[in-house]
């Protein structure tokens, strides 16, 4: 909280809320529960959407890898979905899901798919044919080959896609404010209508912080999961 020496004498409660400052400690302390609720909703929507996207993207990428002809249509379809503006995407799904958090999650899943499928496929394709044949020569069956050789080697590319998808999803959640499920976007939206500067700035900064923290966390997880990439770099 900041100390204010009442100078201008415009309004009796001369604190930063009354003066509508951009940065306001008073706001943080009085609306803490609101900020926490919005942040929790923001995180929930992002995590659920990205998790569903991963679950869908892995089989799609494997299909596209196994049957070459499937790669074109799968990539084309996900790219077309990516082109559709987020506001339109959420609105187009409105008849299906109504005004719900599911609506925002469904839209985000569709966006994340493009990035994930593309990256997982690129990762799978980058596995050297020699490595695959060596594993086969050692008596690996197709499932074991996939789980213990191909997928781990595809991991760095897949995780790069996951990081981009997550960071984009965090910022796209805000658009969900149009249907009332935008996490911190809700605060930005209501702050816009009431000209509440502290609320808009605080929520915006929190969005960026969440995105950056998520990026760093995924980077760390990636390092833990792929120790061999570190070894080769050192």
């Amino acid at each position, binding site marked *: 909280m900041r100390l204010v020496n009442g100078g201008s004498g415009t309004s009796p409660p001369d604190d930063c809320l009354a003066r509508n400052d951009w940065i306001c400690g008073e706001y943080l302390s009085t609306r803490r529960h609101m900020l926490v609720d919005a942040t929790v909703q923001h995180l929930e929507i992002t995590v659920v959407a990205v998790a569903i996207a991963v679950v869908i993207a892995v089989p799609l990428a494997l299909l596209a890898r196994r049957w070459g002809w499937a790669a074109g249509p799968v990539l084309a379809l996900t790219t077309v979905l990516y082109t559709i503006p987020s506001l339109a995407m959420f609105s187009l799904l409105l008849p299906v899901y109504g005004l719900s958090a599911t609506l925002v999650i469904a839209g985000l899943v569709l966006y994340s798919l493009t990035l994930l499928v593309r990256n997982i496929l690129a990762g799978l394709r980058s596995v050297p044919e020699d490595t695959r044949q060596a594993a086969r020569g050692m008596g690996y069956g197709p499932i074991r080959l996939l789980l213990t050789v191909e997928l781990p080697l595809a991991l760095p590319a897949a995780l790069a896609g996951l990081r981009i998808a997550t960071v984009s999803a965090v910022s796209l959640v805000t658009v969900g404010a149009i249907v009332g499920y935008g996490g911190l976007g809700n605060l930005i939206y209501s702050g816009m209508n009431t*000209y509440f500067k502290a609320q808009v700035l605080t929520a915006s900064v929190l969005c960026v912080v969440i995105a950056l923290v998520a990026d760093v966390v995924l980077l760390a997880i990636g390092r833990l999961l792929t120790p061999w990439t570190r070894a080769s770099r050192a």
Partner: protein
Amino acid sequence: MNLLSDSWNWLADSAHWAGDNGVWHRLAQHVTLTVVCLVISCLIALPVALVLGHLGKGGALAVNIANVGRAVPTFAVLVLLLLTPLGQYSEGPTVVALVLFAVPPLLTNAYVGMRGVDREVVRAARGMGMTGRQMLFRVEVPLALPMIMNGVRIAAVQLVATATIAAIAGGGGLGRIITAGFNLASTPQVVAGAVLVAVFALVVEALFELVERFGPGWLRGRRA
């Protein structure tokens, strides 16, 4: 399937296409915004990227700008700008926000394209006695053009999408039809607006695809 026919009827009603809130006017706003912002963004990003790429400096800068750009919600920037003195000018916040979001892909792609030019070729050009300026405009830029165009394409599509979000913050453009539909609690109008926006975005993407396939040779490039 009532909703689909209702949305179709909304689109078919010529009253919804005319006037200040009509589709044609909103489309014109959307196109104007997109084109103006694309031109401004190119004027800002391309000279910087070309010079940095030519000098071989600032790679980390270009990549970091692109990453931070993705983390910042467009909607938040729009509303923040709206609450600053800039908000007094009707399209001011929208233009600034759109330009901010179009610059990173332009910068990154142009820079990467410039650095991707074969060093042997550049050295050969230098060996032939070309000056720095000649090398830039006769060798590096033509060879980097496919990547630069790819950046312009990404920026353009992103601009179309972002101009839609501007409508939530009271800006013009096609998104306005959707937000107006929400305010009227008219789902058919929301869906009709969404279809229009989606079709427009796809048309822009298709136009770039056509230019890449059949455009004049200097514009055409293989996609990386």
